[in-house]
């Protein structure tokens, strides 16, 4: 299967801090990849490089075979849910959705599952500034899915969501996977990744430690739980 | 009582009868004798009247050497055709009225004039139009001359323009209700005493609207001086009254609404100075009273050089001027009181209409400009405003003597 995202020799540093040191990886069409790593390992930077929000110092990111540098059209096929979603304070939820549709100029074939699942449509008149962090996350999640993108990139998707909402989101992720989409998730909640992911990519200090199927990982470690498998492998390696 | 009335009747009837018997009226008309004013004057005797009918007459310096009343009917034209002067009056008791005098010769050797009055007295020049003459009306060595309601327009030629109405070595001259334009100086006096200039307008002249030198005891009232290329200049004179005049829109560097040089014991009152580059410039002027004038929208309202002494500036209004007072040094012996300054920011706690703290009209910035003219580029900048505010509250550089201890809270009605 052809890879939809390819990252080649990606380097990025912020000041003296080298965040990504020649990262090479690729993601095929479909499946859920859990991107793991300790704090400051470069997960968010990698995601942002794919999204063109961070400009790499060296290397290239290809989306669907084309380099993403200086282009923006490919983002039509990505839904992104940021770690902390903040929106124009005075805008109402309804207006936000309307604006995004307007900006993208897409009005049909919308995926409004999450909007109704989270009951956001009932809160259309609420201003963004009055929303709790959790509700904002719901809005972010709904926005990411809204345009039926081929690829979903979710940065800490369930952080701040109540368990029920987190469940809804997980169900949604499964459903999207079933449609054959590629979903990249970063998370610190290993159980969640354990539940969702097909593949695991582990970043450490700007390098990819490994990138393999979850099942292979577990087999290698001889553990049933991702958490334990991870601890075992990492302690062995170091 | 009866006797007195009898004497009056007798005297009056004697004059009427005598006058009628002696004086006659000569009519000048083209195509009939006399054909010109010159011929008519030759025929006339003292006390006669000459009426010139409508027409264009060549007049190459026609000399009026008899006491005549010369009237133009339907504005006849006397034209010197650029060959000589138009008309010269050398006799006394002459009246000239109703003519259009034009096209005098111009030249460097002589001051050719439209109308010259020389060595005469009791001459009246009324309601004439003078056009395109080198000098308009030129009065010299004369007494009791009145010039009224004439319209004097020069040739607007920068190189060869004379003065509109000029008086030299004369006294008791009255200049009233004239309009002068496009000459070198609108009105020029030199060595003229006890004379009055009133209700004239002098506009768009090539040099000064009004210019006088060495002329004492004169008054200038209700005149309008506007848009003259160098404003108005008065120099070396004493006991002058300048009142109710308007000095407007005299623009440009070294151009003054009113330039005063060595003026002594004079009064400058109730004048309006509006939109002049410099409203009044004073140099070596002493013991003058400048009161109840209105200075508005001038670049510089008063520039008083430090060689001026004992001048009093009172009851004036200063509004919307970029600078109110500037000086090149100190103004120790000059006094400012009871003026209204729009830049005054003091208070009046006892509500007597007079500000409780003195006003210092020379701003720090004006002092800076004095030393470094280039700092004009910083005019109205925040830093300059700031400096001025600081200086006004804690004066250290501006001349302490220049202050108005009784600034008015409200403008005077002028």
């Amino acid at each position, binding site marked *: 299967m052809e890879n939809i995202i390819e990252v080649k020799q990606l380097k990025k540093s*912020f000041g003296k801090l080298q965040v990504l040191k020649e990262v090479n990886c690729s993601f095929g069409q479909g499946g859920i990849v859990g991107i793991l790593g300790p704090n400051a390992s470069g997960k968010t930077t990698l995601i*942002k490089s794919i*999204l*063109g*929000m*961070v*400009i790499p110092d060296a290397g290239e990111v290809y989306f669907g075979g084309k380099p993403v540098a200086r282009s*923006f*059209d*490919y*983002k*039509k096929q*990505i839904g*992104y849910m*940021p770690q902390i979603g*903040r*929106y*124009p*304070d*005075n*805008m109402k939820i309804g207006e936000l959705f309307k*604006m*995004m549709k*307007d*900006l*993208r100029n897409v009005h049909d074939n919308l995926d409004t599952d999450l909007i109704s699942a989270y009951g956001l449509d009932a809160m259309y008149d609420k201003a963004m500034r009055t929303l709790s962090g959790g509700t904002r996350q719901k809005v972010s999640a709904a926005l990411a899915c809204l345009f039926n993108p081929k690829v979903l990139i979710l940065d800490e998707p369930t952080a701040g969501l109540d368990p029920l909402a987190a469940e809804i989101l997980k169900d949604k992720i499964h459903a999207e996977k079933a449609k054959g989409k590629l979903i990249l998730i970063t998370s610190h909640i290993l159980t969640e990744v354990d539940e969702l992911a097909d593949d695991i990519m582990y970043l450490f200090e700007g390098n990819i430690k490994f990138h393999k199927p979850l099942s292979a990982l577990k087999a290698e470690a001889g553990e049933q739980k991702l958490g334990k498998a991870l601890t075992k492998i990492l302690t062995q390696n170091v | 009582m009866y006797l007195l009335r009898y004497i009056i009747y007798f005297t009056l009837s004697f004059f009427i009868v005598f006058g009628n018997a002696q004086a006659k009226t000569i009519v000048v008309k083209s195509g009939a004798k006399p054909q010109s004013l010159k011929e008519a004057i030759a025929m006339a005797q003292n006390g006669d009247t000459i009426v010139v009918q409508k027409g264009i007459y060549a007049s190459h310096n026609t000399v009026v050497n008899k006491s005549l009343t010369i009237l133009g009917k339907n504005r006849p034209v006397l034209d010197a055709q650029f060959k000589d002067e138009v008309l010269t009056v050398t006799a006394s008791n002459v009246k000239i009225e109703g003519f259009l005098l034009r096209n005098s010769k111009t030249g460097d050797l002589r001051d050719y004039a439209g109308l010259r009055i020389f060595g005469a007295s009791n001459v009246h020049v009324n309601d004439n139009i003078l056009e395109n003459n080198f000098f308009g009306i030129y009065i010299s060595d004369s007494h009791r001359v009145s010039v009224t309601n004439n319209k004097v327009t020069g040739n607007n030629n920068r190189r060869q323009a004379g003065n509109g109405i000029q008086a030299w070595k004369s006294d008791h001259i009255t200049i009233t209700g004239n309009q002068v334009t496009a000459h070198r100086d609108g009105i020029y006096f030199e060595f003229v005493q006890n004379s009055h200039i009133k209700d004239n307008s002098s506009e768009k002249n090539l040099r000064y609207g009004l210019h006088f030198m060495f002329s004492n005891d004169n008054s200038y009232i209700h005149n309008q001086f506007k848009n003259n290329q160098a404003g108005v200049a008065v120099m070396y004179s004493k006991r002058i009254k300048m009142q109710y005049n308007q000095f407007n829109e005299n*623009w*440009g*560097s070294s*151009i003054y609404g009113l330039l005063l040089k060595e003026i002594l014991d004079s009064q400058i009152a109730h004048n309006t100075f509006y*939109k002049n*580059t410099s409203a009044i410039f004073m140099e070596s002027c002493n013991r003058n009273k400048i009161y109840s004038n209105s200075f*508005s*929208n*001038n*670049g*510089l309202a008063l520039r008083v050089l430090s060689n001026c002494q004992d001048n009093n500036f009172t009851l004036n209004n200063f*509004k*919307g001027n*970029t*600078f109110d007072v500037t000086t090149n040094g100190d103004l120790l012996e000059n006094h400012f009181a009871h003026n209204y300054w*729009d830049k005054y920011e003091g208070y009046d706690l006892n509500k007597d209409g007079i500000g409780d703290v003195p006003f210092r009209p020379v701003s720090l910035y004006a002092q*800076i*400009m004095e*030393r*470094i*003219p*280039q*700092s*004009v*580029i*910083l*005019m*109205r*900048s*925040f*830093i*300059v*405003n*700031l400096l001025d505010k600081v200086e006004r509250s804690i004066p250290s550089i501006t001349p302490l003597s220049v202050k108005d201890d009784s600034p008015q809270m409200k403008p005077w009605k002028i």
Partner: protein
Amino acid sequence: MFKIAKYIALDIIKSKVVMAYTLLLMAICISVFLTDADVTKGLVSITTIMLIIVPLVSVVYATTYYFNAAEFTELLVSQPISRKNILLGKYIGISSSILSAFLIGVGVPVLLFAFGSTGIILILTGSLLTLCFISLAFLASVAMRDKAKGIGLALMIWFYCSIIFDGLVLVFLYALSDYPLEKVLIAITAFNPIDLARILVLLQLDIAALMGYTGALFQDFFGSGFGIVFSFGLLMVWFVVPLIISLRVFRKKDL
């Protein structure tokens, strides 16, 4: 681009800051005109106030808004929209709302009370000054990563342009007053948009004083239309160039 501008403008209009700015300007203008019968003097007062407030509010508000909307910018960057359009959209959105505030707050009273060439020049100058300082705010914003530093830099720019620069010019003049500095001075003013704006209004209001004081070169400069063209042209440069630089920086900026 215009869609983004529209949403930003709508967002700003709903916030009370710009409304307060409009009302403040309007209150100042109307009170100046009502307390002073002389229109020219009123215009002078308004110019003085305008030259301080307009740059300050423009630069600080635009910087603050830029940083407050950083996450929103991030969201936009993750969308299929080019960075150029995002930044220009932001610029148009912010500047159109601050500019409208100025036009309503100053423009309307000036046109009502002091309609004439001076009033129109004042409005034009104020508008250009607004645009210049929003451009500078954008430059400060893209140059700095965090809000505190950005606003700090914005305030520095304002402080420099309104006080320090002229102070330095004054010191420079004092030190070198023996030299013919006219040409140099005219060139120097080009480095400060507030000075350019000030000179433009001066040319209208204080031409009388300018004519009285200045040497031949200044007179040519101030007296002819050249001064006006020069100042307007350079104000345009101050508005366009920082914007272009910020576009270039923003294109390579990490979010």
